[in-house]
């Protein structure tokens, strides 16, 4: 699984989930962290769950004053894929930065 399989939005979602993979996260928290709208966030989560990379469950206890929340975290496969995709993204950025530094500066003709 490479970073090429994921869109930029999905990569930011994977990055948020990968930060603390053991913790179950809820949708609004992920939306705040990634800056994604709910209409983008949930389809991305569903696609990841269909590929077996994200697991979902409901909060076990009924909290007072609000409905139970749906929670998400990476599966073991999801964690591996997320780490591979994020490291590939980082190395791509790094290569891009080096290439930009090596490019000779344009000399202004006077």
């Amino acid at each position, binding site marked *: 699984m490479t970073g090429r399989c994921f869109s930029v939005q999905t990569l930011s979602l994977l990055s948020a989930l990968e930060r603390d993979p053991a913790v179950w996260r*809820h*949708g*609004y*928290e992920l*939306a705040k962290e990634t800056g994604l*709208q*709910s*209409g*983008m*966030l*949930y*389809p991305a*989560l*569903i696609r990841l769950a269909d590929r077996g990379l994200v697991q*979902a469950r*409901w909060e076990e206890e009924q909290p007072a*004053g*609000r*409905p*139970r*929340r*749906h929670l998400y975290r990476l599966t073991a496969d999801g964690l591996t894929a997320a780490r591979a995709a994020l490291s590939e993204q980082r190395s791509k950025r790094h290569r891009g930065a080096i290439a930009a530094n090596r490019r000779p500066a344009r000399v202004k003709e006077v």
Partner: protein
Amino acid sequence: MLARVLTGLLMRSVWLLPAERAEWLEGLVAEPAQTGAGRSRVAWLLGGVWLLAGELLRRSAARVLTFIVAAGIVVWLIWPGRSSDAAVPVNRVLVPLLVAELALLPLLVRRFYGPRRHGWLPRTVRVVGYLVVLATAAGHAVEQREGQKLGAYFGSGFGRMPVAANAAIFALVLAGYAAAILILTSRRVRLSRLALPIALATGTLTGVALSARFSVHLWSGARGTLVVHLGLGWWGFVALGLPLLTGFMVSRLAARDTPATGLSPARQGSLAAVSATGTAVLVLAALTAVTIAISPQKVPLRTPPPPPNGGCESCDPVNLTIPSDLRHEYWVGLSIASASRAPDAMLVIGPMFALFAGVLGTGLAEASRRIGNRYDSPHSPEPPSPAPT
């Protein structure tokens, strides 16, 4: 206020999605307690609407596209025509209404009978059934347009019933057939494995055979209407013989092969009987309407009745005065407009007769099963031993 409306809308739409998807939407709707009030909550919930719409379209994109194309073709076919034609304005209102009704019916049926059953057969039945219903609607509308060219001259068209009432009843009947197709193939109607294939196969074969006879009748240039041509024997077979046989067969088979929570064999037999006749008359109505719409000039011309006691020669049976220069055109139109009256009437009458015949067939199946069980049962009396010689 808007947030509350959107929450209500989304929670009431959850059933549209399969269970494995519905919980994601419910999860999204459960979040707004955290999102704060006002615009951010509305924006969050609009994301839910987007999710719902996307899932619905993605899951049924091919079917939705097929329906849109087919419905577009139907509306395109029925739209042209002169305003002097009594059927044109009626078609332009009622056919799009029927199309909209057909688009909404799957959602309504899903609410009460659950989603479509798994497998290729229910899927094919739904797609083909819908296409047949649309073809019937288009064929009937074009046939009426061809037949009612002089209709506006006589007010609301000619025939025994105003064109609008006739078309409205026809549209309702077709919507009923579409609903029946959806219900029969939904998950909560649990039938034995062979019930639906038997009903559909026997019904389709009968419908095609009847339509073939009608086409031969048209192309041979014979006189007389379809009712006369087919004769009582055929109609009797469709209304009574076919459902009796299907009801008997399905009821016997269902007794051996019914899912645990399925309908009783007797009910399955009756349902199959009505379905077989329904299929036969729908296929007949569709092929008849399409054949007439394609070649209205082939419809046998009805001749004016002889004037009673030397009376009015230019009057039709409903006592309209027909100008002499329009007389031929009038009888041509009337012949076309009423050519498919028999199959159209059978759409309503056929299933009613079929229900009675089906109940009779399942009763016979039940009786034959009881007789069979009496001899097969281990407690059945031993057959008498031959007398010693």
